[in-house]
Structures are given as structure tokens and as C-alpha cells.
């Protein structure tokens, strides 16, 4: 269990205002970390900082040894631009392989096969030629996840992966992510509102809210004061 990611005294926010501070945690290879907290507590900002999309105000975020930037997958929250983008499902999923290309201009046969496999895995193969903007919210989410899986070789970061999904689709999504974590050994970092799922699937929990309220294993979290208080408010189910 080697450490992949280390955060030391990280504080995040926008110009002049600190959203959350004193974040200290590590993520090891094979972990399933769930980041929980209330709205506006800086969860998504933290994901963006981890990915290098947004600079942190202070502190250090370091990727250690094994994992480099182009081995990471990312499932973002959807932006407005994408909703009316003229692109086929296949083109979008394939673009997840971009970080394997380096300077090579075109995709290799293996990368095309990988994209096909991921589409099969998420059961969107029959949508292959369809236009992204004509799909339902759940289908779009699957497409974006397939793309993220194409680029994730060591680690995947998910920002509210079940937004817009019905309960059944949400469950399938969770099972799929758990499978990735357990079978493929991909490290998972996920932002979620869904406490039930967090305590069911995650190995570690990071609770943020202005500052770091808790970081540790799921078992410790459920016995901790913060955890119990939050779980009772959010309707968490403690005895699985």
C-alpha cells in the first residue's frame, strides 16, 4: 500500500475568501476515498485542486511516485457547453484515450478497442453513433464515465457521479465503481452527497466543512462524533 497522493495544510477558496482550510490527508494505492460535506463546503473545489485545475491558496498537493497526471480519469459535473455539443458518443468516449497519445496525433487500434470495451461495460454500445445532446441525463453520465474510464489507469476522481440518475441507475453506477476499485485496483476519489453509499462502499472518508472535520477509515468515521452527527442528519444507515 504505497501512498499516491498527499495533501499537507491545504487551504482552498476564491480570491480573498477561504472556503476550507487545514486539509491533511493521504490517499494510498487501492483506496476508495469518499469526500463528504454540506453544500458549499469546498468538495468540488478540492477535486479541482487535486486535478490541478484550480490552484490552492496554500499548502502542498503532491502526487507521489507511481501515478502521473496522464494516468488519471475524471468525471466532472456537466457544463452547459457540453449539453448542446454536436458529437457522437464514440467520439467522446475515444477522447478519454487522449492522455495515452502524448504527441501522437491519431488513436491507435488498442485505444479504439479500449473505448469499445468501456462502452460495452457501461452498456452504451448501441448508442455509439448517437448524438450526445439527444441522450437522457443518465445516458450522458454513462458516456462521460466511459470516457473517464478510458483515461483512468491508476486513479479516478468522480464529482457527484450520480447526479441526474434514477435510484436503479445510481446503484448500478456505484457497483461499477466498486468493481473498478476491487477488481481493477483503481484508486477512487469521489465527492458525494449520498451518505448511504459513502459508508457502504468507501474505505476512507474525508469530511470537510470550513476545515477538515474528519479523515480516516470508514469504521472510525462511523464511531466518531462528527460521523454520527452527520449520519443521523443525512439519514445514513449505520448497520449496513
Amino acid at each position, binding site marked *: 500500500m504505497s501512498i499516491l497522493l498527499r495533501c499537507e495544510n491545504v487551504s482552498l477558496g476564491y480570491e480573498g475568501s477561504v472556503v476550507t482550510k487545514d486539509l491533511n490527508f493521504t490517499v494510498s494505492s487501492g483506496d476508495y476515498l469518499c469526500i463528504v460535506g454540506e453544500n458549499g463546503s469546498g468538495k468540488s473545489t478540492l477535486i479541482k485542486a487535486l486535478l490541478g485545475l484550480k490552484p490552492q491558496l496554500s499548502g502542498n498537493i503532491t502526487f507521489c511516485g507511481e501515478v502521473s497526471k*496522464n494516468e488519471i480519469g475524471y468525471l466532472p459535473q456537466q457544463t452547459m457547453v457540453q449539453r448542446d*455539443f454536436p458529437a457522437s458518443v464514440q467520439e467522446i468516449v475515444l477522447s478519454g484515450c487522449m492522455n495515452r497519445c502524448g504527441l501522437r496525433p491519431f488513436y491507435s487500434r488498442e485505444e479504439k478497442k479500449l473505448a469499445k470495451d468501456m462502452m460495452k461495460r457501461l452498456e452504451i454500445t448501441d448508442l455509439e453513433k448517437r448524438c450526445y445532446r439527444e441522450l437522457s441525463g443518465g445516458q450522458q453520465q454513462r458516456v462521460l464515465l466511459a470516457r473517464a474510464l478510458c483515461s483512468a489507469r491508476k486513479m479516478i476522481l468522480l464529482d457527484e457521479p450520480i447526479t441526474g440518475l434514477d435510484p436503479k441507475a445510481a446503484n448500478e453506477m456505484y457497483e461499477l465503481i466498486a468493481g473498478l476499485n476491487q477488481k481493477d485496483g483503481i484508486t477512487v476519489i469521489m465527492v458525494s452527497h449520498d451518505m448511504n453509499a459513502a459508508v457502504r462502499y468507501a474505505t476512507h472518508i474525508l469530511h470537510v466543512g470550513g476545515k477538515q472535520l474528519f479523515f480516516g477509515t470508514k469504521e472510525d468515521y462511523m464511531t466518531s462524533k462528527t460521523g454520527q452527527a452527520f449520519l443521523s442528519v443525512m439519514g445514513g444507515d449505520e448497520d449496513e
Partner: protein
Amino acid sequence: MSEVFDKLHMYFQLPSVRYAMIVGLLIALCSSLLGVTLVMKRFSFIGDGLSHVAFGAMAVATITGITNNMLIIMPVTIISAVLLLRTGQNTKIKGDAAVAMISVGALALGYMLMNIASQKGGRTSSNVSADVCSTLFGSTSILTLSPADVWICIVMSVIVVTVFLVFYNKIFAVTFDENFAKATGVRSDMYNLLIAVVIAVIIVIAMNFVGSLLISALIIFPALSAMRLFKSFRSVIICSVVISLICAGLGIIVSILAGTPVGSTIVTADITVFFIFSLLSFITKKGR
């Protein structure tokens, strides 16, 4: 009808008409390639802003009396493209305000400089407005292209098309989801820069032909039309290239026969196609 063909046949005997056709089609090809990217990245106005900058640069070039205008216009436009992209990320002045500022500023300065130049040169003021008009809306006569112009245009087009083909997948990735590309280790800043530079190059080569005010139309309209009907990125781009080539070809022929200004004739053709495609997409949606 045969009269029309005879007339065309006669015109195409002239090298200047053939030059105009070659240059027109090449410009149409290049400008349609990046249209989708510009529209989807909300960069449409940057294209417009850059063409005004190119106008300003041309005025400066006229004043300094450099024989080859390109030497000034090209670098100035490319630098502005890079600057405009930078300000897009900076929150101090919002992107659209920065574009408006630079484009209107360049337009005003350019016009002023051209007037000053003409006063010094002792030319009449009517000449100035003719000059300005042709820079803004394209030459009324397309028969003024020299072989050198044609060669510059051919070389630039080859560069633009090659760059586009080589970076096609990267341009798609960066256009569809810049954050994802960046997060997964693709150097999206570099590709944004590349897109900006290519747009600047396209605008400069197109300026002599359709005029700086009408270039944006050439870039945006084919893409918008294609997006009405086609569903994948690749088919949209292929379709917008085809639309652009057909409109440019038709526009040039009509402008020769009817004596209308080239730039606005081509744009009129583009607008017509846009409405036809809108109508088609409306009908196909209703039919479903």
C-alpha cells in the same frame, strides 16, 4: 442560359479570375474548419475582434509604407489572439468586454491613422473612404490579386489544413471538455494557443478577399448550418467545409456575372444555406 456559360467561359480564360477562384475556395476551406470550435468554445466574438485588429494593423502598415503588409498584420493579429485568450482566463476584465474593447479600439485607431496618412500623402478624402470600405468589406473587384498573393494564400492554407488534420483529435478533446483534457494530463493551454494562432492566420489571409468585417461570417455560418443537421463532430466539420466551398464558389461566380462585391455575395449565400438548413432541421424534428 448558354450566354451565361459563354460569359463564364470567357472570364475563366483570364488568369485573374482563376486566381480569385483558387484563393476564394482555399479561404472558404480554411475558415470553415475551425468554425465549430469557435462556436462551441464561445469564441465567436474573438474572431470578430481579431479581424478588427487586423484592420488596425493594416492601417499602420499603410502608414509606414511597407511593401508587404503581411509582415505587420500577421504578427500583430497573432499576438492579439494570444492576448485575447489570456484575458479570457483573467477575471479583472471579462472576456467579452476585453474583446469589445480591443476590436472597437483597433477599428477607431485604424480609421484615424488611415486619414492622417492620406492627409500627409495629399490624397483626396474620397480615396480614403474607398480604401477603408474595401478593407472592411473586401475589394469590390476581385481581379486585383497578384500571383504572389495567390502563392501566399496557397502556402498558408496548406499549413492551416495540415495543422488541423494533425491536431484534429486534440482540438476535439479541448473543445468538448477543456477541464477534462487538462485534468487528465493533456496540455490544453498549448492547444488553445494553437487554435488562437490558426484563427489569426485564417483571418489575415481572408481579409484581403472578403474584408475584415465579413470574415466572422465565413467562419461561423457554415458551422452553424452544419450543426443544425449533423450529429457527430466529424460530420459537422465535413459538412461545413462542403457548405463553405459551395457558397464561396457560387458567390464568386454570381459576383462576376452580376458585378456584386465578392465578400457580401458569399456571405449572402452562406446566410441562405443557414436558413435552408434551419428549415430542414425544423421539418425533420416535426416529422419524428
